């Protein structure tokens, strides 16, 4: 399978950072997921081959990390924190709102493929709780209203 040139440059640079090839697995998985959207069977086979691992070993690692996924996700992956600080500041209500608005549950994906929703543990933004992350972008000091707007904006962006 083919990845982008950017991926290839990163990969060949990264592989030199470690004494053994297999150590490059986790960052490689992350880059591949960013590029393909999820870790397909094809991606797994390719990376296993490149790093001298069995596919089973690659799957073992993927299953360990909740940020890695073998299933296609929506274009925008909405990750709402409900850990202690966010919970105290309305995180659970925000999550409920997202569920209702998007019509999906935890780890669900909307039919149009635009949104996925995830309830996550602390994302390190406690000082600005309640917080959520959409792909790599943080949204802080959230209220239901604010969250609602954010989702609308993404929807607009995604359907343009």
């Amino acid at each position: 399978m083919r990845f982008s040139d950017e991926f290839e440059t990163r990969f060949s640079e990264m592989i030199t950072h470690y004494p053994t090839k297999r150590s490059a697995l986790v960052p490689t998985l992350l880059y591949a997921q960013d590029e393909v959207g999820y870790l397909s069977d094809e991606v797994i086979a390719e990376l296993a081959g490149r790093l001298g691992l069995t596919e089973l070993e690659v799957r073992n690692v993927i299953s360990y990390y909740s940020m890695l996924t073998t299933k296609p996700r929506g274009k925008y992956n909405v990750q709402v924190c409900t850990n202690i600080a966010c919970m105290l500041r309305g995180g659970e209500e925000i999550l409920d709102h997202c569920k209702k608005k998007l019509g999906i549950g935890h780890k669900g994906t909307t039919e149009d493929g635009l949104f996925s929703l995830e309830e996550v543990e602390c994302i390190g933004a406690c000082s600005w709780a309640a917080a959520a992350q959409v792909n790599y972008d943080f949204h802080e000091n959230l209220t239901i209203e604010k969250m609602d707007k954010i989702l609308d904006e993404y929807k607009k962006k995604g359907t343009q």
Partner: protein
Amino acid sequence: MADVTLIVDGKKVTAPAGTLLIEACKSAGIEVPSFCYYPGLSLQGACRMCVVKVEKMPKLQTACTTVITEGMVVITDSEEVRQSRKAMVELLLGNHPLDCPVCDAGGECELQDMAFSYGAPESRYTEAKNHREEQQWSPVVYFDRPRCILCYRCVRVCGEGMDVWALGVQNRGVSSIIAPNQSDHLECEECGMCIDICPVGALTSGAYRYKTRPWEMNHVGTVCTHCGDGCKTTLGVRRSDTGMEIVRGDNRDKSGINNDFLCIKGRYAFDFAHNEERLMQPLIRKNGKLEPSTWEEAFELIGRRFREVRDKDGGQAIGVIGSTRTTNEENYLLSKFARAVLKTNNVDHHRSADFPALAAALHGKPGKTATMRDVLTAPAILLIGNDATNQHPLLAWQIRTNVRLRSAKLYVINSAEIKLKKQAAGFALLPAGADAKAVAFLSGDDSVLDSLAAAGTARDAWTALRDQVRGEQNLVIAFGSELRGADIEKLAAFASTLTGAKLICLADYSNSRGASDMGLYPDLLPGYEPAASASKFQQEWGSLPAEKGLTLPEMIDAAKDGKLKALYVVGANPVGRLGIDPFLLSKSFVVVQDMFLTETARIADVVLPSANAYEKSGTCTNTCGDLQLVKKAGEVTDCKPDFEMIVRIADAMGFDVRGLVPFGGGTHSDMGQTRGAQSGEADRHAVWLEAHNLEPKMTPFDPMAILDEIQRVVAGYDVSRVNLLAGADQHIEIAEGGAGAIHKPELIVPANDGLFSSGTLGRYSKTLNSVMENRSADVEVAAD
């Protein structure tokens, strides 16, 4: 390594530096409980059962990962330690189903034992347990996930031990699960090591699951009857309608040369014994059809016909084909019966390695053959030819373990990129069929270098490999049947230029070596004594036939010409295995002893149902020359050991069987009572008598009587009987034997069995067949 002294529970304990605390405790007789720790596998530190208090360390330490240090003070049993272990067991039981009454592991489960010794009588968990139905991962491997305690032993033994890496751990924390390599099923070597090593009943086997309970079986330690490696296997047997049924095979007690290793064949392929096609009655050809008959009628007929042929046409009109799976005693008896009773030298067997050439090469030069145990400890190993992973699974296991744990150097010379290449420090690819050239090159003949390099391994690489090999001391050289005759002599000559080098000649069947050692050759008597000049055997056996014997192909030719009037086939299937046209045998009177109606049995005039190696006693010799005791485990009514049948045929021919089997003489003893207050006395007598080589041989069917003779007359076999009976393997020194012989190389026909096949026997193993079918199904799926 220097010794380190520490104090454990107030006791002074000394062990070599570098020893793990758990092992040091064990050596001092102090038990530290463990689940995940397994000697020989990487450390896991997952279960925390082995925690102990080490003075000056703030928290409890895991004894399985702690290395001992001088002056260390350890407490393995205190309130704190007990509390901690109790909590661990409680957590493990938190989601563990309480199905011990039906679980395969019940009665020999490490979790049961731990819960009993270290656990709490009640649990504080009231939550519903996570249930998941049992999954079938392959014909052999089943997984009952809720029972798993996540010790990861299975993952490690499959990866590190087997080098298959078919099992993995997925998810994290309490959600962790053991996963097979093909997401919902396994594609692997089906060795069952993972099942065997599982401390609980999470991994169970297709062969044994839900069949019986450990305490309902008898356990008999004997030797695997498949390949030539000679693994010790403990068979679990129980009563059945037709005798004693084998339900399980393992080597959990780690006795024998294979420690706990068994491949699929040793572990599960005992099921041929209970195949419904098994013959249970003698068959005699009447009006062109094989009809059931009685033993008496069969023996009478065979005895009469054999005698007629011998007396009328002479012994040379009779041929004898022996087995590579019968015991040494049976092979010796057959060799003797052929010469002394049938008066023929026409004796042969399915040869899969050239031992006579090895005997010739090493004649009078002792100490040049390696044992299977040597492969585990040798500093270096050279493998020429053979795909050991598939053809000699134990040898491959020994090599891998040695490379992994002792950093042995492995050199591989093969015409294929065999799996062991991965462990090899040096690998050279041969052009097909050029094994002999490799030997010439090793011996210093550089003229072959160009043709060797044709397969892709460069000239420099070949030379570098040779330099490395030449620099090794105490090298074990194992070679496949690719090397025959004079090539073996050349290899032995090369080996003798190295310090301490030893050879292993690889043959395919469980007692190929024994068949060879016991003289199932036309020109060789037991111990590789040339038949032409065997005064020793003349004294033992009486007058021997003078005519030169025929080899197996020559016998077939003679049969074609109508000169071979009778053929006696004991536990062999030359028609099926050697591709012989059955029509060629139509003019001969053919007697076949076998378990099944094989291609050869189908054309026989008389077929006698025989017992297999799991149903008889005696000894067998593995491919390295390690002699081991075979013990009777299973039994199928109305099948007889080949030993008894040979004696009965001799008797039916009017031969005084005392001249064949030296039984009855010597010792007469009061065997005591076998019932009542003095019961057991007979056993006590027997133990002593056996140990002193004096056990009464009360019938001519007692193989021990022939073992006496073997030990007396077959060179190299005079090993300690006590050790043998105790179950120890003992090495046979081939160099002490006769001069051997250089035979035509084409007389060797490799069995070409892989992991899931085992000659004719394998065809009757449902386990092996189902694995093969499963595989071809997978291939089909992959193709579309």
